[in-house]
């Protein structure tokens, strides 16, 4: 079995460590809270010769993703990191990175979008680019942030995928909170991630290609459809890699994590670190005889609609907790879950919680399970439903 080391690390530190072990060729860097511990940790590794990466200190996040595309398509393994406004600024290029099939791994420290400006956690940044065509995986804790960074590297580079993969971890809650993390050895990581290879690298002058062309209405639609199929292929790809990764460390990753769904009548569906709190409350309520459970989404994009529908018990109520709002419309995760459950005998309800870093307490989760939760959980001034 592996010689695993157990270290006390924040999510940010664990991702920086994973990146050191992956040792990418190029890393464009631009700071924004709360991903800064990742880039600072990694920069120190480079300065000490523990990573052999070209650190490119770009002058904005838009340039970070742009440089990442140039590097990845030139033939170099490329990683970067951002949050919130940085993701918003580079959004244009994120879409293009996906359409150009650039395998880039990006750490995302989930943080609320302005305004007002706020540095704390919510998922609005991820939701801003949900249609961009990139893979989005959500970690529950620092261990997952570490593991998913390794898996993401392989997932991005699969020949049927070749897309950017975002490893999302809740800002401050995961990025800055220390917990025990079981690390793989450098050799195990190197062996798992292997060598970077893409077809038609730009730095091969013998086989030139023109990448990023102009497409008229006669071809845009078909090129987009091709791209969509690549993102869909990432579901099976993630499952296969989760299986392979399990052999290294006994932790098995799937697009959806079911938690105590046996006979569950009320199931919360959620993303990210709040799942940890919910699991505790599920355990307490189960001890009290209540049939409750949790369905944690790990892969938000591609969305595991079929798996979710098949895992939810018949006639259950699915309660979706969104850590982002979609003003004037259905909240993002709620919309996905409702779409996945069309035709199923499952009632779907939803709440918005935690915007701008507002904590979700166990008492709030109890209220939600009991059907007494406010539409906006924990919001001051919101009337309680009868």
């Amino acid at each position, binding site marked *: 079995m592996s010689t695993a080391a157990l270290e006390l690390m924040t999510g940010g530190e664990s991702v920086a460590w994973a990146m050191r072990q992956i040792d990418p060729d190029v890393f464009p860097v631009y700071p924004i809270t709360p991903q800064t511990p990742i880039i600072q940790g990694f920069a120190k590794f480079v300065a000490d010769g523990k990573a052999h990466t070209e650190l490119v200190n770009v002058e904005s996040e838009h340039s970070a993703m742009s440089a990442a595309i140039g590097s990845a398509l030139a033939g170099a393994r490329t990683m970067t990191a951002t949050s919130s406004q940085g993701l918003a600024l580079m959004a244009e290029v994120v879409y293009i990175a996906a359409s150009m*099939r650039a395998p880039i791994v990006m750490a995302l420290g989930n943080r609320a979008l302005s305004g007002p400006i706020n540095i704390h956690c919510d998922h609005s940044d991820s939701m801003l680019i949900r249609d961009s065509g990139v893979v989005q995986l959500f970690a529950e804790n620092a261990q997952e942030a570490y593991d998913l960074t390794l898996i993401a590297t392989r997932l991005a580079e699969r020949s049927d995928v070749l897309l950017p993969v975002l490893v999302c971890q809740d800002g401050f809650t995961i990025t800055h909170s220390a917990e025990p993390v079981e690390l793989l050895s450098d050799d195990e990581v190197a062996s798992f991630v292997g060598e970077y290879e893409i077809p*038609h690298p730009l730095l091969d002058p013998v086989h*030139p290609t*023109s990448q*990023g062309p102009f497409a008229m209405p*006669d*071809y845009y639609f*078909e*090129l987009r459809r*091709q791209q969509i199929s690549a993102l869909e292929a990432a579901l099976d790809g993630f499952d296969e890699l989760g299986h392979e990764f399990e052999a290294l460390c006994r932790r098995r990753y799937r697009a959806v994590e079911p938690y105590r769904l046996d006979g569950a009548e009320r199931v919360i569906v959620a993303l990210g670190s709040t799942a940890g709190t919910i699991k505790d409350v599920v355990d307490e309520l189960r001890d009290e005889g209540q049939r409750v459970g949790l369905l944690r989404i790990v892969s938000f994009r591609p969305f595991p609609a079929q798996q979710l529908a098949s895992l939810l018990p018949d006639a259950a109520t699915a309660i979706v907790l969104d850590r982002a709002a979609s003003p004037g419309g259905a909240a993002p995760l709620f919309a996905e879950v409702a779409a996945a459950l069309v035709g199923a005998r499952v009632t779907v309800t939803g709440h918005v919680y935690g915007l701008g870093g507002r904590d979700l307490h166990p008492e709030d989760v109890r209220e939600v399970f009991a059907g007494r939760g406010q539409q906006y959980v924990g919001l001051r001034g919101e009337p309680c439903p009868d």
Partner: protein
Amino acid sequence: MPPLKAWSELPRAGAIEPATASRPETGGWRTGLKPEVDLSRCVNCLLCWVYCPDSSVLLEGTTFKGFDLAHCKGCEICAEICPVQAIEMVPEDRP
């Protein structure tokens, strides 16, 4: 233009390989005149080759050979720039 392809037949990310791509015949842009060289006047200065926006001046080594009429758009820069007035714009159907 070649027939339109299905989405699954397209190169990944629309990356175009020049070796297999088609090239539009922009010679169709001309509106009745084409360039012609009086070889007795031509001094092979190659300025027409330098200034042709459509790479349509054909050479053999450093000697003028002809025009790529499949791509020449008839802009007349070559006729204008020739220092010895060896290039004339003549009707298209002149053999």
